[in-house]
């Protein structure tokens, strides 16, 4: 583990735990945005320029805004008076740790972790575009169709209902 990676990892974990523990929902939403940004940094650090920048564009630029808007439109954005943790937080923590330990154990002993890391390849945006348009064109089209359907659905919900 290198120093930049450690800094990025600490940033992501700190922001994510802040998002869980902060009392004010808007603060939590902004902490999530910081965590998204940290993930983007991790991608950029791994030389995945396209993914890293797309992460910022989509998650910080759109998803975080969406979350913030949802929070503001549904509740006042005021901090709750009483504790935000549920009464059974201890059992929740226990289950989380158990699940994480199982997953971590699986990953550590899996076939993938024993593979030699591939040689460092320079991936240009052009190559990603070529792959998207040839090998992965079907998933791309399916996602496009799904998003179009979601868009039309949003318009239908937002449309004023005609009185009969």
């Amino acid at each position, binding site marked *: 583990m290198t120093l930049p990676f450690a800094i990025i990892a600490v940033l992501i974990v700190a922001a994510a735990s802040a998002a869980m523990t902060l009392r004010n929902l808007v603060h939590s939403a902004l902490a999530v945005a910081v965590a998204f940004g940290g993930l*983007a940094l991790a991608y950029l650090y791994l030389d995945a*320029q396209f993914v890293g920048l797309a992460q910022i564009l989509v998650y910080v*630029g759109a998803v975080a*805004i969406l979350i913030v808007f949802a929070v*503001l439109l549904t509740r006042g954005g005021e901090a709750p008076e009483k504790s935000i943790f549920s009464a059974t937080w201890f059992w929740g923590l226990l289950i989380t740790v158990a699940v994480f330990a199982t997953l971590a154990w699986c990953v550590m002993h899996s076939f993938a972790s024993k593979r030699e890391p591939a040689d460092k390849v320079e991936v240009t945006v052009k190559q990603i575009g070529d792959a998207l348009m040839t090998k992965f064109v079907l998933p791309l089209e399916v996602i496009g169709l799904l998003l179009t359907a979601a868009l039309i659905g949003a318009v239908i919900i937002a449309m004023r209902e005609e009185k009969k």
Partner: protein
Amino acid sequence: MTESLDQIFVTLKHWLLSGFENLLKWLEVAPPDWLMPLVSMVLSLAPILMVFPALFAITTVLERKGLGRIQNRYGPNRVGPFGFLQFAADGIKAIIKEDLVPRAADKIFHFIAPVILVITAFTVYAVLPFGRNMVAVDLDAGLLFFFAVGAASELAVFMAGWSSRNKYALLGAMRAVAQMVSYEIPLILSSVAVVMITGTLSLTKIVEAQSTHAGLLPDWFVFTPWGFMGFALFMIAANAELNRSPFDLPEGESEIIAGYFIEYSGFKFALFFLSEYLSMFALSGLGITLFLGGWNAPFAVLDFIPSWAWFFAKLLALIFLFIWTRGTLPRLRQDQLMNLAWKFMIPMVLVNLVAAALWHFTGPGWMRWLSSGALVVGAYMLLGKPQFESKDIGKRTYRFAD
């Protein structure tokens, strides 16, 4: 001579860099590995941090003078010759004014919102090519970097409005975010057409693709049917993205006073202005890079004028365009704003993408002009014309004050 003048800033940087190296050698200090790249980076970035705020200072005066001219008044005319030192007076005023923070405000976010805005406004300059060999970081995904960093500023605007604990500020922030999200789509999609033609996201390569001269006109993308429409849509979307008149609803002085930065005073208020103008220059610079041939001269005969001079000449022309629009058009209504984005701009950019594809696949010749041009003009006639057709409001009459 021409060559050296063109590369004068690049040469200067190399000269300073080797001078620093020689200084270290003379002092018999072995520089660590990270030092020289760092110094080189600082030397690349320092001019950006100096030139654009200076341009901001000049532009504020030019804008107020220009608006004054348009509105039949003098504009600033007291400080310095013809009022051209007004920016200095404004700057000093901003620094010595009291920094008021509302008691109910969220102190941390209230403080960092303008800081983030200014940082994002400066960061996008890293990938803009200002001249031949004059780009701070030549990223392979430069265009994506520009938009990704620009998208982060929306969150800062929201933070400013929300943390002020003021209903006008929150309204302004909601308006600003809704507007910026809506107009980001045409902004990005209009530049995608250029990416489709050039096949690269690197801004330097996009400029190189426009460096040839074919016939009378240079090979700038603005001189193609899809490029012209793309440039027009890009500039409209940029104008909306900057919250400048006629898209200044988030600030709307007559309705919500100043919108999301109502609770800011002193230097933080000045930072909002700085970031707005820096983003204006950056978006203009991107428009120049994508559609107006970047730092290329329009005619081969004019190549003796340095490339950076061309960039800044085009930049000033676009700034003039922004000031002119601001002085001419009245503010839109909220529903008009959204209708323009979703019913005209977005369908139009999608058609424009098809037009760019047609242009690419038809191959050289008059056919590409005809097919691509017919598509763009037809789409405009169908989508735009019925919406913009002015209702008959009678003959315009002028009444002058006696």
